[in-house]
């Protein structure tokens, strides 16, 4: 293993977002304030049917997880896209870094960014609730896995996209629907039976639900089943990134 090289790439990918703090720290904080205004004050004290938790408490973990996932995706996809357009991915290929090391560094940075965003959002939002951490391990497990899965999709998306249009396509037709339909804004128990069944095929659903479980100690899924599915999805994503990078998919002629 070229650990030093892997570490260098990880820090490069992290500095990329730390250098633009407006985007990575200030923007999520602003988003959080807007969530607060819209959901806390406009929706009032309503609670979620069947679950007996205030709607705002229910929403926060989902919103935080959604932001984590979006940021993880943005970090890897934009880096690889810009790398392609600037022709600078050649430096990654020329360096003595294996595909595994590259994958590790990219995903590591994506997870780091996701967690910074999560902390910023929680710091702003939690004081307005009586929420607290019920199961830290669940929060960490789902947070890490969710960021890896989305960071990995960002890597694959970045490799696949030839233009920013392709990237927008991917974002609007795959990522957005999957996140919005994953139960961020509602409990699946509120949905008709048929939709509930569909939701079980959405990997994001398990991520959001599990992450929320860590805060509220209630959830829509069977935790052991969810953990199995999420672990598998995470490993599959890492494996896909690794193998695709190794073959130089859409990167090397």
């Amino acid at each position, binding site marked *: 293993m070229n650990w030093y090289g892997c570490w260098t790439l990880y820090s490069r990918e992290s500095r990329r977002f730390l250098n633009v703090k407006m985007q990575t720290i200030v923007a999520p904080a602003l988003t959080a304030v807007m969530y607060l205004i819209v959901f806390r004050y406009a929706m009032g004290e309503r609670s979620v049917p069947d679950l007996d938790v205030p709607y705002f408490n229910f929403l926060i973990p989902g919103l935080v997880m959604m932001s984590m996932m979006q940021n993880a995706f943005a970090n890897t996809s934009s880096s690889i896209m810009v790398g392609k357009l600037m022709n600078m991915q050649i430096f990654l290929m*020329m360096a003595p870094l294996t595909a595994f090391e590259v994958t590790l560094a990219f995903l590591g940075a994506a997870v780091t960014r996701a967690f910074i965003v999560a902390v910023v959002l929680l710091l702003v939002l939690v004081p307005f609730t009586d929420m607290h951490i019920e199961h830290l391990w669940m929060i960490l497990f789902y947070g890490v896995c969710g960021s890896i899965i989305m960071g990995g999709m960002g890597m694959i998306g970045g490799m696949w996209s030839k233009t920013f249009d392709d990237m927008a396509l991917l974002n609007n037709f795959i990522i957005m629907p999957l996140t919005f339909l994953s139960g961020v804004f509602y409990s699946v128990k509120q949905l008709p039976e048929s939709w509930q069944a569909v939701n079980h095929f959405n990997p994001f659903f398990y991520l959001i639900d599990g992450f929320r479980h860590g805060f509220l100690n209630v959830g829509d899924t069977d935790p052991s089943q969810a953990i199995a599915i999420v672990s598998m999805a995470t490993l599959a994503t890492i494996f896909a990134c690794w193998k695709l990078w190794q073959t130089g998919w859409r990167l090397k002629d």
Partner: protein
Amino acid sequence: MTAALTVQGLTKTYKNGKKALSGVDLSVPEGSFFALLGPNGAGKSTLINILADTVKPSSGQVSFLGHDLFSERRWCKQRLGVVPQEIAFDPFFAPRDILKIMSGMFGVKPDIAWIDELLNRLELSEHADKNARQLSGGMRRRLLVAQALVHKPKVVILDEPTAGVDVELRKRLWGFMRELNANGTTILLTTHYLEEAEELCDHVAIINQGKLLTSQSMKGLLNTVGSSALVLEYAEDVANESLSKLTAFSPRIDANKIFLCLKKDASGQNNFNAAYQAAIQVLGEAQSVSVQNEDLEDVFLRLTNEHQS
């Protein structure tokens, strides 16, 4: 002499069906200053990009300092520096940071003194802490050179490192390359400045349309492949009628000078005497007599034109 690089039967066919390399065999001696020449589209960059691992080969083998390039990539990459032909740079960072990152990715803790020296030698010190976006084209190219050298590779490959670099800087850049070469670094480069290649390089290979035309020492090429001409200078313009009497030497007249082509026989001896005697008989004693050798550019043009399919 051991080889820094041995390429065997390397082929590359791009996805669009373009055959860029059709079986290239090449050997680059360790410690040499090697020029890889060829017209546009000959396949030079394709060859270099395969060595750099940015293009996948279709078939063939490469041995790098005695190690198999394709199966021992890491070992080889740590000892190889490549300057790509296409300008590429990281728009997020300043040159100094780019060099530190590059060094780190090669698994080498940045050697600050060496980085400063590179910035200095490539005349980028002033711009070291500006964002790379603010560099001019020539500065970006020099940054690429610095990036390729930051991990102190044993073999350096430069794909047109001086394109877009001004005359003065080009001279100094070549001086720097010479120094590196004198310290034991093998250097392979492509360039379209043939005069510079002739002056600098001790070995040369010419490729055209994906095929190797020749590969040997610069001296060898100029002596064996390069032909020479006998030039006789007279007080008055040489009469055109004399041409028909000297056809055996493919003569050419330029005002008061006549050029006779000298050919080598199997033993490497040229026909200087025969040409000289014939000329004196037809035209009388000359004012001055000299032999002009074909330079690299003449040889290059002749070889690449002869092999035009």
